[in-house]
Every structure is written in structure tokens, then in C-alpha cells.
């Protein structure tokens, strides 16, 4: 079968060689790319980082209004905080995924002119978003500490956040490579994110889901993240071992798969950018 992005290999029997290796200070490069994204985003805004906080607070208030005043539900205490536990990891996931996906196109001028290691571009886009969304995470932790209190189960936060970032980095690598070849990919990601908002237990509780539909959630990494976060912040218990194990395995697997796909597609980026 002919791949949609077939190479010239069918014409020339010699395989396409990889781009020459780049040597240098990888972390300094990532740092500079992250700072670039971050500075460009906030330089022309008078409120700067505050926008990052206003967005989830507005969403939280609206959802709180709808689901406590219009559809009253008496059985979830701290409903606003409950919603925020869903919104913040959802925002991290969707924003990192989307900006990672479009990062190669956005930085086409760099890729076509400087022999920079291409993996650094989507990775830096994900990190830049994490840095930006750190404000939301801190807001969530602050509100949880104020409303419920700090507990030693909070140590688990140090495990689950890196796992989510690892997972979305793999996804960003994979989709950024696809997006070079087929520009529609970005809209697929955007639509998926809209669907995901309702398929992740953000406004509702996992326990309300009828048993026959739970399968949809068992393989949903964002849902796992939300449940783990609610365990820790609202119930003050450690997340289930099976959930953590599944999250760890799927995150590492996703990252490796993303990297492999990226490397496979990388040699011909230049021709399509």
C-alpha cells in the first residue's frame, strides 16, 4: 500500500539518511525555547499571567452555578473545588497537546534555517504551557488547602503531575509530526478536546457513571488524572495502586511511541514545512 506521505525511496533505492546530529547544550536550548514562547505570549498583555487564572475561575463559577443552582446536586461537598480538580488537569492536557501539535508549523522558520534538534520544539511548547499553567495548579492547591487542608497524601501530587506531562509530551511529539504532513490535524485535536471536556468527569462524579459505560473512562488518561487528583485533594487518600500503575505504564509507553513516530517522520519535515 502506498503511504499518503510516500518518500522518494520508491524511486531511489537508497534509504533517506537522517539529518546530521546536533551537539550542544540540550537543556539550555529547551530553556531558551520555553522562555521565547512564554515571553512572546505575555509581552503584549497588560494583565499577563493573570489571564491564566481568570479563565479557570470564570469556568469554575459558571459550572458551579449551573450544577448547584440549576441542576442542584446535594451529594457533592465543595462542588466548586470539585470542578476545579477536573478543569485544571483538563486545561493542562488540552493546551499542551494543542500547542505541541502546532509548534512545528509555528516554528517552521527556525526548522528551515537552523539545524536545531526538532524534538526540542514540541517538547519546549509543552513545557512553556506547563509553566503558564503552573499558576492554575497553584490556585487549585491553594483553594484545596484553604477549604480542606494539607494532608500527607499530597506527596502523590509529585508523582501524578509528571506522569501527565510525560503522557502529553508523547502525544505532542506524535501529533506535531502528523500536523506537518496533514495540516488538518490541528482541527482534529481541537474537536477532540471539546469532546473530551464532557468525557472526562469534570462536572460530574465518576461514581454517577452507569457500569456499562465505565469502559470509556478506564482507558482515558485525563479521567485517571482527575480521579487521582480528587482522591488526593478532596478525600485526602492516596490514589488506587492500579490507577497509578496504569498511568505510569501508559505515560511511558505514550512518550516512547510519540518519540518513535516523530523520529520516523522527521527526515522529511523540511520538504513539507
Amino acid at each position, binding site marked *: 500500500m502506498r503511504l499518503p506521505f510516500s518518500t522518494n525511496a520508491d524511486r531511489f533505492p537508497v534509504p533517506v539518511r537522517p539529518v546530521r546530529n546536533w551537539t550542544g547544550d540540550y537543556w539550555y*536550548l529547551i530553556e531558551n525555547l520555553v522562555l*521565547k514562547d512564554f515571553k512572546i505570549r505575555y509581552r503584549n498583555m497588560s494583565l499577563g499571567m493573570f489571564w491564566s487564572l481568570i479563565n479557570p475561575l470564570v469556568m469554575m463559577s459558571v459550572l458551579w452555578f449551573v450544577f448547584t443552582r440549576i441542576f442542584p446536586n446535594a451529594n457533592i461537598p465543595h462542588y466548586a473545588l470539585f470542578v476545579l480538580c477536573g478543569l485544571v488537569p483538563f486545561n493542562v492536557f488540552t493546551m499542551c497537546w494543542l500547542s505541541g501539535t502546532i509548534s512545528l508549523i509555528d516554528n517552521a522558520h527556525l526548522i528551515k534555517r537552523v539545524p536545531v534538534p526538532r524534538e526540542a520544539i514540541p517538547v519546549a511548547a509543552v513545557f512553556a504551557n506547563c509553566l503558564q499553567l503552573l499558576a492554575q495548579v497553584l490556585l487549585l492547591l491553594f483553594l484545596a488547602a484553604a477549604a480542606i487542608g494539607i494532608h500527607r497524601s499530597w506527596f502523590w501530587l509529585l508523582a501524578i503531575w509528571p506522569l501527565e506531562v510525560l503522557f502529553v509530551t508523547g502525544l505532542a511529539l506524535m501529533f506535531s509530526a502528523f500536523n506537518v504532513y496533514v*495540516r488538518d490535524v490541528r482541527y482534529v485535536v481541537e474537536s477532540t478536546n471539546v469532546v473530551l471536556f464532557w468525557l472526562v468527569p469534570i462536572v460530574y462524579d465518576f461514581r454517577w457513571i452507569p457500569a456499562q459505560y465505565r469502559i470509556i473512562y478506564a482507558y482515558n488518561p485525563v479521567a485517571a488524572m482527575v480521579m487521582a487528583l480528587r482522591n488526593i485533594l478532596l478525600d485526602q487518600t492516596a490514589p488506587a495502586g492500579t490507577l497509578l500503575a496504569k498511568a505510569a505504564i501508559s505515560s511511558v509507553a505514550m512518550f516512547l511511541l510519540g518519540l518513535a513516530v516523530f523520529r520516523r517522520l522527521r527526515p522529511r519535515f523540511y520538504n513539507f514545512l
Partner: protein
Amino acid sequence: MSSQPAVEFREVWKTFHRHTGQLLLRSHFKRLLTWKDSVERFHALRDVSFQVEHGESLAVMGKNGAGKSTLLSLVAGLVPPDRGDVLARGRVAALLELGSGFHPDLTGLENIRLNAALLGFSRKQTAARLEEIVDFAEISDFIREPLRTYSSGMIMRLAFSVAVNLDPDILLIDEVLTVGDAGFQAKCFDRILDFRRRGKTILCVSHAAGMAERFCGRALWLDHGELMLDGEIGEVGCAYQGYLNAGA
């Protein structure tokens, strides 16, 4: 290191697709369904072989679309060849387009750091060269202003300053020295000559022989991706000029 050439092309072929709306899902599906290879290809380079020794300066001549920029992109490692081998020994810095690694919303200083990092420098190495880069570009008053407030001459000076001060072994220049005032151009030529004296390698692209003749000893003439002539610059320049005159 000196026993081997700085840049080596062995029977290099490079083709590009002509994109005719090919980046959309629709056209990928169409190709899958029709089983027809509708992609037009054109050869940017056909079976090009040459060597550049360390310390040599080479000019590449040819009309628009002759494959000159493709050749430099291959040396810079931006794109792999379809067939053949491209070898470049040493750190390559490219001045391929006016301030191409720069972002207009970042300040001059931030752009210098970003470019140094892109070329593989560490924080320490960057800091050590920062002052020299700013001094050479003569834009110290503007260095904390965003790049979009710069004139094109200032951006060019900064780009040139970054490229030559990051101490590459091989410098690629793609027709950028035409910008800037006479004083700065003279300074750039001085720096390039100094670069040559230190045994570094230069590859530059030029439409006309005039500028290149001042610092290149040798030239390649490319036409439609084929290497027409490789030799002493005066000789190649004459042949190319003769071809242009005959065509006109």
C-alpha cells in the same frame, strides 16, 4: 582534521515535491484512492559532487532556482539528500536569510541568547561572547528593545554579528551582505577575511560575481540543479556571465 575536506558532496541528488494543495487531508485521500502518483517532483540538485578543503572559500553561482540555497541547506544539515552523501566537518553557522532565527517580539539580547542556544552553545559560552556580539553589531542602545523596532540594517548587523562571533568552522552566507551601509559592509568583509586567515571555511551564494570575488578563490556554477563548472572564480564567473549574455 585537516587531512579530510571540510565539506564533501558525493553524487548528491535532491528532489522536492511541488505542493499543489497537497497538505490537506483531501489530497492525501485522493492519492490513496486513485493510486496515482500525482505529485510533481523537480530536481533541486542532480548528481552533484565536489569537495571544499579547510580554509577554502567557495562561491556558488547560478540563476534563481538553480539549487544554490538547497546546496547550502544540505551543508547546514537542515535537510537530508535523497541520494548520495553530504559531509560537513565542524560547526556550521548559516546566514541563510535576513535574521531568520530571530523573533520580532523578543529583544536583541533575547534573540542573541536564543540563537546561541540553537547553535548548541551553553549558558557560559553564550555569556562569554555576548559583549563582543553586541559591540560588533553597534546596536548597544537598542539591545533591550524588541526586534520589530529595528531597521533592516540593524537586524542584518545583529544576524551577521551572531553568526561570525559564535566561532563556526564553516560559515554559510546566502546573499545577505547586500544590506547595511558601506562602513558596516567593510567591517563585515574585514571579519570574513580574518575568518579566512584563521583557516575557516566559507561557502557563499551569489547571483553576480562582484561581491564573491573579493573573498572567494573558487566557484561552482549550478544550472537547473546540475554542476556546470567548478574552478577558479574568474574563470567560472566569465563562463557564467557568457551564458547569461547568450541567453539574453
